């Protein structure tokens, strides 16, 4: 029996197979492999040492950062300058003797007080050196009171944006510069 379709289907299949191969592994498999290696190495270096992916847990940074939202911490943000007021940073909880290693858990806080400044709370107003600080990122009502605290020379005063939660449940205070892992990207 002669199959009249054969001469036309075989080259068609071969062409399809060739295109599929090109689509999957490229025209030159060696170059494709090199590209894959470079891509994997770049991703590992970037996401393990430079831009740390984080998932926000909790409500202390509401409304700017919602619970379960995803973000990145830029570890190179403070190479050329120090942290600035208003920066949202990732803070390591302990183990500052191994600062090269990225921590698994971080606090996410906003820098409100710089080295040498005095930070206090009076009826919900954040006072820096006795003057109320304008905080557009704070939305809810706040009735916190806190005695003046002087920030040390190598320290930053950090706190969350959600001041409508009870003061006792909110983690805030002075953080050493070594605790700052990097600046939150978005």
């Amino acid at each position, binding site marked *: 029996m002669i199959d009249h379709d054969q001469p036309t289907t075989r080259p068609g299949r071969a062409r399809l197979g060739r295109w599929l191969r090109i689509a999957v592994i490229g025209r030159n498999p060696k170059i494709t492999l090199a590209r894959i290696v470079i891509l994997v190495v770049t991703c590992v270096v970037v996401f393990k040492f430079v831009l740390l992916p984080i998932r926000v*847990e*909790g*409500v202390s940074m509401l409304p700017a950062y919602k*619970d379960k939202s995803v973000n990145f911490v830029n570890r190179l943000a403070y190479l050329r300058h120090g942290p600035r007021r208003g920066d949202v940073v990732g*803070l*390591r*909880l*302990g*183990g500052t*003797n*191994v600062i090269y*290693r990225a*921590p*698994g*858990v971080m*606090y996410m806080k906003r820098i409100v007080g710089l080295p040498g400044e005095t930070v206090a709370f009076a009826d919900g107003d954040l006072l820096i050196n006795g003057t109320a600080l304008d905080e557009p990122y704070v939305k809810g009502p706040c009735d916190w009171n806190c005695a003046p605290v002087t920030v040390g020379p190598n*320290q930053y005063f*950090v706190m969350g944006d959600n001041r409508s939660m009870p003061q*006792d449940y909110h*983690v*805030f*205070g*002075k*953080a050493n510069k070594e*605790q700052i892992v990097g600046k939150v990207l978005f």
Partner: protein
Amino acid sequence: MKNVLRFVLALAVAALGVWLWLVLFPSPEKVIGRQFEKLARAASIQSGEGNLPRMIAAQKVGDFFSTNVEINIDLPGRQQHATMSRDDIVQAVLAAQSAGGLTVKFPDINVMVGADKETAQADITVEARVPGEQDMMVQAMKFTLRKIDGKWLITRVQTVRTLS
């Protein structure tokens, strides 16, 4: 080409040797790190577990501690400075587990072994989660360990204030 292959093969053999050495003779830091991972697994319990598995898990947790443990907890609303026996620790674990399930993780373990190789200090971030509750508890802690009868046992537990 042959030389390159030989070089690559020699490198692979050397890497395998180093890996084998590290597996067979782990550093004390590695041993303690693994011990804390086991401790986290032992302290974690599913919400539907019966009393017997809870008891076994609590006993396992107790095995990681020395007979007397110095406890220094300094948290807002809770302060405790006491010396607890291993049985007290088992009871405390049982009490913590009785509320339902409990998931404990140590995401950051930094171990420093003393010059005498008999004592060590571990800076650890403790992450605890109770099923059904939205927020997890995160606390930096410092554990002091001593090598007793060839086993690293926890002799002191203290909380660390992250922000002063």
